[in-house]
């Protein structure tokens, strides 16, 4: 069940014109620069803010149209705010119990969706077993945010909205929560709408991407495609990157390497503590990818794959971005104009791409 929305508002310098749909599965990252209207969109979806003549529906549930405005408390959404907003007069357990007690309020009699996430399940998924008896004011930022996520789940929402939940956290807490979000989405089959302006977070967890700029939707689609689409600003940015889904194939104890199989071929990375068969996501920064016409033999680079040139576009005065396709997987390389010219790259050329470094997300 997708979320369909249409919000338009002329509001001084800021025009809002958001008319789109968010898929009803997986993690949709709403990505855009600060002040582009990402948070506004999330608040409108939750009913925390409203614009006249807005429309929003979730599956068959009409949340807002000409005649209906469903209050926030009745919408089937969970909300995690940017700063951890625990009720500080309540303990961790009591914060969760607050949501459990009111979970049935959210149930719309027409849709009869049941309370389906138990207290224990929410606690387990967010790994807060040891925090339950603590005073909520005594927790660290990362702990508070995990409790806030658990609390949102305890209300048994059908959609989880997260507004830059990691913005205020240290690196370690960030990594821990980033690892947890895809698990939530999979385990509960819950669509998550994740607002962020941090490309690394988005690349790591997003299945779908909704690009927003200046109050408008630039485009949307699956994350792998959107990141490498040359028409969109991501592929042209200095941090442009490509995603590759891979499976852990084997560990090489002699060289201390782990081999990962993907659609484009086998990757070698420094040995990881992952089990064979595990799914991982690899990120190739465009600036770390180089292109050769022939397969290089005398090179230290391990990760070399065959690909076809899909498009070459200017990125700045001295560099071009090359979009490559390798067995259906889109990949980006950022090279100098001089190199592109001496290689004579044109669409359709068969080339080899060399990845100097690969990040495991």
């Amino acid at each position, binding site marked *: 069940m997708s979320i369909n929305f249409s919000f338009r508002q002329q509001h001084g310098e800021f025009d809002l014109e958001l008319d789109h749909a968010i898929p009803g599965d997986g993690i949709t990252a709403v990505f855009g620069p600060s002040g582009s209207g990402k948070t506004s969109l999330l608040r409108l979806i939750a009913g925390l803010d409203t614009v006249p003549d807005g429309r929003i529906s979730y599956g068959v549930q009409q949340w807002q149209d000409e005649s209906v405005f469903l209050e*926030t408390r009745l919408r089937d959404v969970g909300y995690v705010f940017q700063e951890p907003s625990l009720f500080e007069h309540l303990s961790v357990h009591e914060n969760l119990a607050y949501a459990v007690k009111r979970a049935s309020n959210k149930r719309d009699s027409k849709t009869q969706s049941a309370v389906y996430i138990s207290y224990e399940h929410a606690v387990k998924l967010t790994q807060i077993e040891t925090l339950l008896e603590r005073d909520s004011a005594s927790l660290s930022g990362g702990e508070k945010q995990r409790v806030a996520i658990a609390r949102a789940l305890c209300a048994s929402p059908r959609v989880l909205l997260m507004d830059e939940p990691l913005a205020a956290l240290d690196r370690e807490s960030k990594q821990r929560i980033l690892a947890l979000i895809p698990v939530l989405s999979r385990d509960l089959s819950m669509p998550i709408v994740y607002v962020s302006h941090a490309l690394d977070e988005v690349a790591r967890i997003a299945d779908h991407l909704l690009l927003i700029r200046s109050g408008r939707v630039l485009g949307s689609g699956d994350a792998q495609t959107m990141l490498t689409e040359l028409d969109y600003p991501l592929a042209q940015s200095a941090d442009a990157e490509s995603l590759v889904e891979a499976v852990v194939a084997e560990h090489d104890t002699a060289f201390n390497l782990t081999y990962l199989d993907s659609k484009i071929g086998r990757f070698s990375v420094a040995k990881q503590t992952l089990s064979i068969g595990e799914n991982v996501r690899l990120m190739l920064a465009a600036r770390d990818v180089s292109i050769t016409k022939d397969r290089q033999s005398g090179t230290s680079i391990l990760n070399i794959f065959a690909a076809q040139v899909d498009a070459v576009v200017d990125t700045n005065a001295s560099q071009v971005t090359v979009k490559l396709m390798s067995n259906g997987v889109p990949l980006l390389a950022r090279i100098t104009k001089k190199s592109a010219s001496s290689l004579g790259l044109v669409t359709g050329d068969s080339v080899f791409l060399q990845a100097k470094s690969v990040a495991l997300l």
Partner: protein
Amino acid sequence: MLSTADLTALLLTLKLAAISTLILLILGTPVAWWLAKSRWRFKFVVEAAVALPLVLPPTVLGFYLLLVFSPAGSIGGAYTALFGQSLAFSFSGLVIGSVIYSMPFVIQPLQNAFSSIGQRPLEVAATLGASRWDTFISIVLPLAKPGFLSAGILGFAHTLGEFGVVMIIGGNIPGETQVASIAIYEHVESMQIAQAHWLAVTLLVISFVLLMLVYAVNRRSGSNVMRV
């Protein structure tokens, strides 16, 4: 030592302060909530009206109340018709006067307490399925507890020290309108300095202890709810 008459005056004062504070907490809470949350353009008019007793000479307040209370006035007339006695120079009249006189001391700490909670906890509660009333009871009241304590203590202490308003609308009827401050004035007027001392010291100690409580509460809650 405190005489029986002094004790009666003291007890009457405490009773007046307790009843007035209770009424103010009940009536003042919705007003303070509205003041904290409303974005109405002319809210400042209401805020100024609430703060008026802070700066107005008590005699001015007393004077107008006396006019309103008089059996010839509409309110005073209706009261006299209903209860067969005048509002002026009665305990009920004093309660009304005290409620107005101490209003800012209760409403302003409550308003500050409600404002400092901010919008976020209310939004969180809404996303968790809580109605507005539920949110007020389960979130706002507990978070504003220090504000309520301060408001209650300040309202009570301020009513204890009331003099000018009582002087004009209450007069000096023992057991009905003779409060401690009036009794002290009486003692001084009739040169009973020792008697005046006893009552004065009692009021001083009570007031000091109450104010210490306010500051202790503020300190513990880490907030500054006493910005009157």
